[in-house]
């Protein structure tokens, strides 16, 4: 029985110190000592309590660490995008993995281990020295892989293009020169705006005299509308850009100065070469197919090293056979696009009008008086489209082409939407003058698949942010909220902001329809319309002006008690009866301006941003002024249009 309780009596005068106990608890003691301590703890209550106390200290620390410390530390999750960018940039500039010196020497040693004999020693040594010299240049000359460089640059472009807080503005210079003597044949200036939030790119082309000669408005889904003075708009997709610019290189202005587009032009760029030139990389590409079937002779893209932005492109192409071109058919010509300025602006600071189609490009391509029948048909078609909301957002365009026909074109989101619009166009669909070309986005993409826009995972807004008018809104809601919960106030501010932004955006959509209507038909020709189409025109103006008025009135009611506590009044609208169409057109443009200003001020004041609270107050007066003006003008327009005998009956004709 004694042996049952007589455990390690001989060790009872020895006690592990706290260091030993900690090492034991951490599994760091050698096995023999660990066994000794384990047995001792079984026998010694004092040491066991000491060990348990250490365990409790560890437990408290870990609890504190997990519940308090770690949650208060940054998760670093939001930095992934930035890290990938840095890593990719590093990868591009890091030489490919080469055999190391040690490996090479080991190989040489292995090869020569038994072979090296005295007579050969001198020769082998010479070869070795030469080999090492070659290897040194091989190892220490960084080579940049074109595909990786373009992929990196493309990733950076995607990140820029999709940043909702920024608007990109670039100025480019395009030149066309003879291949041999570099004689200048053509020069254009390209002005490009891109909104990351809206996914819209507006590209304007100016000739040497600074006159706007063409423009392209494209959207993130690939749809594109190209306007050139004297030609009817081309509605299509950006996917057709590459073959188009090769067939008609003067249209190179439509081409993006970007790594992504360069990849599209050169295929995979698998055999492209990269030159390291100072602050730039230059990717040179020459197609292997040198036959006449291939118009592209060479291409070179310059990419800046510091931000991987494409800043210059030079392409040499065979001029397509076409009369009147000085270089002659099949003659090589050199096109270059060079960036002359680049800026990124906060979206809120950019006037939305830079994304609007210019009136001179929208003007009818038939400067001569168009036939009354065509004008009537144009107005009737626009009216029919308006009835199904297809004029909102410029889904479908209606233009009179150089062929004298009415072209109804659009790229629609879905098949059902196309069916709806075609049904709406039934009254004009069989008119021989009407050419209807409506395709879905899917069809457009099928013609030549474009690479889908890559949704950026980086750059999510992680900053603590607010809206510039937060202080004013907060004061109002705190004074008018029974609960003292700051959450209630924040929720109310958020709800109001969302509502205000939606109302302003909706007003803007209708203002756009009005502007396009005003641009569609010159004021002088409105009087020549048939009574029915004239009424339809006025009805559309009245209806959309009413929508603008409704939304701006709603905005005024929503914002007045908060931002204009002293009250504002829309004022008495001027009498609109008897107004001439020219007045109506002017009023439409003024209304559009007012709605644009209002939308810009509201977007600024109510969109989440950082550090702008101090400037929020400055927008209050601006909002007040533009709201008042828009509401007055819309009322004036509605009255003027109604005075033009617009009635529900006539609308249904």
């Amino acid at each position, binding site marked *: 029985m004694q042996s049952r309780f007589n455990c390690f009596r001989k060790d009872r005068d020895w006690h592990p110190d706290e260091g030993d106990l900690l090492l034991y608890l951490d599994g760091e003691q050698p096995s023999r000592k660990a066994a000794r301590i384990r047995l001792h703890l079984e026998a010694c209550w004092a040491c066991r309590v000491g060990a348990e106390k*250490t365990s409790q200290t560890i437990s408290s620390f870990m609890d504190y660490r997990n519940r308090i410390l770690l949650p208060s530390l940054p998760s670093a999750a939001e930095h992934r995008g930035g890290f990938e960018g*840095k890593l990719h940039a590093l990868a591009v500039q*890091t030489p490919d993995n080469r055999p190391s010196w040690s490996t090479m020497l080991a190989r040489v040693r292995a090869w020569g281990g038994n072979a090296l004999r005295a007579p050969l020693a001198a020769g082998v040594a010479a070869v070795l020295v030469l080999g090492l010299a070659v290897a040194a240049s091989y190892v220490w000359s960084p080579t940049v892989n074109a595909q990786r460089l373009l992929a990196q640059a493309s990733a950076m472009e995607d990140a820029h293009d999709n940043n909702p807080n920024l608007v990109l503005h670039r100025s480019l210079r395009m030149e066309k020169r003879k291949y041999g003597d570099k004689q200048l044949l053509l020069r254009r200036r390209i002005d490009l705006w891109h909104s990351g939030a809206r996914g819209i790119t507006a590209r304007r082309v100016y000739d040497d005299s600074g006159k706007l000669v063409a423009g392209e408005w494209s959207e993130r889904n690939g749809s594109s509308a190209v306007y050139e003075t004297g030609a009817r708009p081309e509605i299509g997709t950006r996917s057709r850009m590459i073959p188009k610019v090769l067939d008609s290189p003067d249209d190179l202005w439509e081409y993006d100065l970007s790594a992504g587009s360069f990849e599209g032009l050169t295929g995979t760029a698998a055999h492209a070469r990269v030159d390291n030139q100072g602050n730039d990389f230059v990717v040179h590409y020459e197609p292997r197919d040198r036959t006449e079937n291939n118009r592209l002779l060479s291409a070179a893209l310059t990419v800046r090293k510091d931000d991987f932005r494409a800043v210059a492109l030079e392409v040499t192409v065979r001029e397509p056979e076409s009369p009147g071109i000085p270089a002659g058919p099949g003659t090589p010509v050199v096109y270059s696009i060079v960036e002359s300025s680049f800026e990124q602006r906060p979206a809120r600071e950019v006037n939305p009008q830079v994304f609007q189609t210019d009136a001179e490009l929208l003007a009818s391509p038939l400067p001569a008086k168009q036939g009354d029948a065509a004008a009537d048909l144009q107005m009737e078609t626009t009216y029919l489209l308006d009835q199904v909301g297809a004029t909102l957002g410029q889904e479908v365009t209606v233009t009179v082409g150089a062929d004298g026909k009415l072209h109804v074109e659009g790229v629609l989101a879905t098949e059902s939407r196309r069916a709806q619009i075609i049904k709406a166009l039934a009254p004009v669909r069989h008119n021989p003058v009407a050419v209807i070309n409506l395709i879905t986005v899917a069809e457009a993409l099928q013609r030549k698949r474009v690479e889908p826009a890559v949704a950026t995972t980086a750059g999510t807004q992680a900053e603590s942010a607010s809206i510039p008018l937060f202080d004013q809104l907060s004061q109002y809601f705190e004074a008018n909220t029974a609960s003292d919960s700051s959450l209630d106030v924040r929720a109310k501010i958020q709800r109001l902001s969302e509502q205000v932004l939606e109302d302003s955006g909706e007003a803007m959509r209708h203002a756009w329809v009005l502007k396009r209507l005003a641009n569609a038909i010159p004021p002088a020709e409105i009087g020549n319309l048939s009574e029915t189409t004239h009424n339809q025109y006025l009805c559309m103006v009245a209806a959309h002006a009413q929508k603008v008025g409704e939304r701006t009135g709603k905005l005024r009611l929503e914002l007045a008690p908060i931002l204009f506590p002293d009250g504002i009044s829309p004022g008495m609208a001027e009498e609109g009866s008897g107004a001439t169409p020219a007045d109506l057109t002017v009023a439409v443009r003024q209304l559009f301006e007012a709605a644009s200003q209002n939308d810009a001020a509201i977007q600024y004041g109510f969109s989440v941003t950082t550090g702008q609270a101090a400037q929020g107050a400055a927008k209050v007066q601006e909002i007040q002024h533009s709201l008042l003006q828009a509401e007055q003008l819309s009322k004036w327009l509605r009255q003027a249009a109604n005075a033009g005998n617009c009635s529900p009956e006539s609308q249904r004709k």
Partner: protein
Amino acid sequence: MRLNPEVPAPAAITAGSSVLLLTQKPMDLEQNVVHVYETLRTQVCQYLTATFGDPAEAEDITQETFLRLYVHWSSGKTIAENRLRSWIFRVAHNLAIDRTRSAKFIRELASEEYSAAALQVPDGGSDPEETLLDRERFNAVRRGLALLSKQESRCLHLRAEGFCYREIAEILNISVSSAAEFLRRAMRKMAR
């Protein structure tokens, strides 16, 4: 960044073992570094913040650490599987020390911030007594942490990350017995 979906992800990296692929195409290597970064970045960043302060600097150093991993691998060098994690912590630690020396770290241990956080102990449930006890306990830990030297604090946090004494010694460039001693002192101060 466009990842190649056909490239298999490397095996999971756990606290005890790490797996890495050393002879790969560049894009594979990048993806693997990203994978390791995603696996370990939070631990590294939190360790740096807890022991050096300034979260922004900590994140910067964390990223630099993984970029160095890429350079290390792309130059053909290897890291033993079971040493990858301690390699990363060691590089991060050394980078942080370098920055501390060059006074780039704006703040040393920002214990005040964590003290403030400790005042907001989450409810342990509906029991106010439990919440009060938690608060007392955490205050005691906080007081103990405030007494620690830099090395004691680093050893403690690395131990909490699961590193053994040898690894802690490697990361901090000290002997194993020094690591043990720093930990012993840390525990003693914490237990007061």
